[in-house]
């Protein structure tokens, strides 16, 4: 199975999964309790005005017609309007998305740098006190609830030591020429530090343990013994042969990590009141603002599914056993 056919088949499966998730979302949000138009209707509305409104949103059509319209809008990227602020959903999410991306990628970069280095050290120090205490410590970072770690960070570094602000992404009243200017401004970075470090602390657990165990596994392989028989220097065996093989799963984990991180930011964004996609989703669900909730959810799912696909392709590109089909 040549690489092209591998990629095409995975792409087809990805589209299928996307369609299924979209349908699931459609059903769930249609069956949500409560009248979706509650935000619009105030006591003065008469029955037929309500019916007109429903027609405007197409809610009086039979379910499968609504489904058809829903899919078309989805493909065109038309997510309708927020029940709450009546703003187009794409605009609502457009404002918050950059903050989520900044948080996610800064946390992931930090987590994977620490993880790869830490994992290699843990593997090298197998059987010593470093491993004896290291592994439980890493396990603790994955066992501690993210929001509790965030609360501790806030209580300590924000409220007690006042090193970092406790909410939001920018100080009130600060203006920025462009989003890009905002991201690199000192103020934004000060706001970003605590949430990013908290998220990174949680995310580094996976790469650390994964790097450790794949390194240990690779070091026992026959081709490493053969390198030693050939008298190659230990350093070049570690870097050129062991690390290259051990990195394969870690790189794939990074791609998957992006999807998981975006899905998982919900908690960190809520604790730090970080104006991101996750927080918007939670507030939309609480306020029964279904278009925003549905769109935010769908976007997160798309990122996860696409990153699953990217992880597969990445793995096939990096691992010749998959890409170079045997003639």
């Amino acid at each position, binding site marked *: 199975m040549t690489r092209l056919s591998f990629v095409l088949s995975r792409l087809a499966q990805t589209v299928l999964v996307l369609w299924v998730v979209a349908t699931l979302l459609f059903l769930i949000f249609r069956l949500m309790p409560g009248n979706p138009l509650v935000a619009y209707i105030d006591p003065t509305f008469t029955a037929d005005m309500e019916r007109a409104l429903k027609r405007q949103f197409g809610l009086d059509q039979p379910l499968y017609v609504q489904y058809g319209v829903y899919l078309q809008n989805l493909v065109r990227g038309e997510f309708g309007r927020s029940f709450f602020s009546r703003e187009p959903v794409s605009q609502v999410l457009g404002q918050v998305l950059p903050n989520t991306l900044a948080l996610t990628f800064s946390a992931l970069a930090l987590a994977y740098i620490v993880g790869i280095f830490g994992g290699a050290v843990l593997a090298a120090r197998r059987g010593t006190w470093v491993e004896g205490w290291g592994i439980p410590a890493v396990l603790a970072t994955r066992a501690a609830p993210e929001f509790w770690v965030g609360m501790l960070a806030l209580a300590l570094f924000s409220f007690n030591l006042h090193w970092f602000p406790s909410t939001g992404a920018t100080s009130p009243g600060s203006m920025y020429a462009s989003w890009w200017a905002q991201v690199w401004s000192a103020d934004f970075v000060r706001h970003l530090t605590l949430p990013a470090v908290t998220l990174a602390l949680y995310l580094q657990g996976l790469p650390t343990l994964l790097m450790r165990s794949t390194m240990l596994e690779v070091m026992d392989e026959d*081709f490493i*013994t053969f*390198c*030693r*028989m050939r008298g190659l220097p230990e350093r070049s065996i570690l870097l050129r*042969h062991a690390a290259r093989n051990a990195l394969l799963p870690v790189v794939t984990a990074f791609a998957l990590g992006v999807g998981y991180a975006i899905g998982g930011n919900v908690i960190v964004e809520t604790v730090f009141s970080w104006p991101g996609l996750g927080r918007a989703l939670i507030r939309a669900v609480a306020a029964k603002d279904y278009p925003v909730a549905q769109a935010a959810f769908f976007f997160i799912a798309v990122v996860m599914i696409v990153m699953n696909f990217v992880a597969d392709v990445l793995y096939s590109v*990096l*691992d010749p056993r998959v890409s*170079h089909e045997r003639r």
Partner: protein
Amino acid sequence: MAQLEIEDLTIQYQTSHGFVHAVRGVTLAVERGRAMGLVGESGCGKTTLARAVIGVLPKNAAILGGTVRFDGEDLLALSADAQNAYRWRRIAMVPQAAMDSLDPVYRVGDQMIETMQLRGGLSREQARDLSQRLFAQVGLESSRTRLYPHELSGGMKQRVVIAMALALSPQVLIADEPVTALDVIVQHQVLRILRELQKTLHLSLLLITHDISVVADLCDDVAVMYAGRIVETGSVRQVFTAPQHPYTMGLRNAFPSLRAGAGPLVPIEGFPPDLARPLQGCAFAPRCPFVVDRCWTEDPALLPAAGGQASACHRASEAALLRTQAGEAFARLSATHLGSTQ
């Protein structure tokens, strides 16, 4: 003086259930330019011996004593770097799991070039030419250097590893079960290549295998190993036609031959001793049809007999007589199925 002389080598493994005495005082010599076969069944310590010579033993193995002399120089006494200088430049090895010894994420040609550059100090071009030549010598087209290991058949991977072993033109080549996993026709070709290379490059070859027909086909001398100890050595002709040690006799009867009439095969009853427990007397005693009281208490030493042949058996002097009775003796033993048989 032999090119490679191993004297009284003792190695043990530290495992969860105690110390395993894999090699219990082995003395073996590989003459310059000759092929020595080391024959033994699984668990007799032959691979441990080979890896001790190249100096790459598993972490839980420890060399307790003995010497490994290369042209008179004891490798075990050298510093790590000095020992490393011998690796691949003077002593090379085709490992037992040759099929899995190639890094799956690099092309085979690049792995050859890497060894030549890092250890042989060759430039990239020189290395590429030499690897093309070596590939040709082992019967592989030079285009194969661009392939990844998983794209090669078992026979081809075996030949790539042999070519890699010859990269820095070593004087001693150790080959651990080089043809065991191969089909009979490819096996024939690889053996032919090994034989030609050994003759043309005047290599001192130490071939390790459990298959006595491979030794008969390729080797000049042979050493038979059992439970971590050499029990018999000599030229292939001497040992295979006139074995001195009962275990060698038993092996010969148990080995189905294509040519001879389909005479009854005679097994060797019982199974090899557990090397984790200390041994009393001769290790082969429980399975030997000619066992006498002395065998249970006194551990026989490897004593030379006529014509350079040597064996470690208290009744070596009666070998000619025992040889004639070996067939029925082993058969009688297996008929009784004494205790929990093998």
